[in-house]
Each structure stands twice: as structure tokens, then as C-alpha cells.
């Protein structure tokens, strides 16, 4: 995860979860519930990614957090990066969907 220009699936899910303020473990459970357990993030990966996102100022500690309960939320820069990646992913999906439709005819 040297560059965050292209977000990996793990980073994408974590950033998507942090569009609203959440604890680390709430991020884990949200991803697990949303994907019905088909995508899971291990605790060491989650911790590594959270630290990295914070270092790159894509997420920040939310006002509600204290030393015992750390709550994170996307920064403006983080929202921007996530939006860019959504566009990138949309292109992939669009290409695939169109191709499949044409292939059926």
C-alpha cells in the first residue's frame, strides 16, 4: 500500500465505513455485515491501514473520541480520494455491464 492513488478493496471498504464516525471494531463489523462475511478485514490489516490513512491525513480522530475509544472519520481530502476511486470503479463496472448486455443480444 505504498501509494493510495488506487485504493485496494480493503482500503476502499475501510474508507467507505469511515464516511461516518466509527470505532475500528465498528468498521470491522460493518464490512462483515454489509458483505455477509464474503469480505473480511483482519485486525492487523485494519490497524495498519487506519494508521496509514491517518498519517496521510485521509482520516482524522473525531471529536467524540478519547484515549480509550478512538473514533475516526474521513477528512475532506479523504472524501475527495474516495470519490475519485468510486469513479474509477464505476468505469470498470460500466464496461463490464455494457459488454455483458451486448454479448446477450
Amino acid at each position: 500500500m505504498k501509494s493510495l492513488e488506487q485504493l485496494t478493496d480493503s482500503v476502499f471498504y475501510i474508507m467507505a465505513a469511515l464516511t461516518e464516525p466509527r470505532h475500528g471494531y465498528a468498521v470491522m463489523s460493518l464490512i462483515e455485515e454489509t458483505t455477509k462475511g464474503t469480505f473480511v478485514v483482519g485486525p492487523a490489516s485494519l490497524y495498519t491501514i487506519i494508521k496509514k490513512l491517518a498519517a496521510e491525513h485521509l482520516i482524522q480522530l473525531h471529536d467524540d473520541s478519547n484515549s480509550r475509544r478512538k473514533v475516526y472519520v474521513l477528512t475532506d481530502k479523504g472524501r475527495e480520494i474516495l470519490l475519485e476511486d468510486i469513479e474509477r470503479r464505476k468505469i470498470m463496472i460500466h464496461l463490464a455491464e455494457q459488454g455483458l448486455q451486448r454479448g446477450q443480444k
Partner: protein
Amino acid sequence: MASIGLAFSEEHDMKKLSEKAAKGWHLKKFRLAGYELEKGEPEESIFSIDYRKLQKDEEEEYFELFAYGGWTHVCSSANMHIFKAAPETTPIYSDAESSIDKLARLAKSVNLVASIALAITIVFWVFMTFASGAIQHIAEQGFTYSIIFTVPALMTSGGVYYHMWKNLRLKSKHI
């Protein structure tokens, strides 16, 4: 239980800890060049290790995340943390990127030790070769001792890079 060094045998060590636990011998703590086990009930569990320097105010969050992910903290020593979990628990590293980051963190500390050892060895070698009399004699002995540390330290560095290379290959295969 002995270990030849985590940089080489991390996977092997973790598997062995799991085998020992199945026979009722449980990891208690790190010991110099190995682990201390204690007798208990047989238990099916898997083990994982993470390398991370934690600030005091980071510890709680870090261990809590592992607990939430189903991993019980067993012991820590010098920025190494061992966890155990029931078989089939999600691995602590679920993606290639962050497991390469883990190795990079390990490489940093391992390389520091290796470079210091290497520098000391070179200094002794210089005195051994170019000095004379008592200084040369002392340097000769110093060189012999420092070689004993330097060679394994360099091999450990090599071991870490080998694992990183293996991980990178694995990652490119997935793509």
C-alpha cells in the same frame, strides 16, 4: 521450545505452537531464542505474530481490535506480539499490502542491528589489519567475537527480504 529466529521460521514456529497447544502445552511467554510453554488442557488453536512499536495510548485500541477479530493476546516482547485464536478465524493480515508493510517494519529493526554489528566488525578488522602489538591482538579477538554476531544478523536481514520477495510474488500472482 526453541526457535532459530522468527525472521526465518515465523510460520514454522506458529505451527509448532499450535501443535503443542493441541497436546496441552500452552505458550506462556517469550524466552531468549524460544518460547516458554506451560502444561494445561489440550486446545485447538492457531497462532499469529505481529511486529509493531506501540505507544502507551495505542495499546488499548490495538489489542481491542484483535480481541474483536477473535484473536486473544498471549504475550509480547520487544515490539513482538503473539495472538491465538480458534481454527478458521480470519487471519490477522487479510491482504498482501499490509502483510508486506509488516515485513517492512520488521526489516527496519533487523537491519539496524545488522548494520551496527557490521560496522563494529569492520572497525575491528581495520585495527586487526593495520595496527600492531597489543591493539592488533585485542582487535583480532574483537573481530572473532563480532563475526559471531554479525553473520547471523546479516542472515536474519536476508531472511526478512526473502519473505518480502515471496509476498510480493504472491501479490502479483493474485493480480
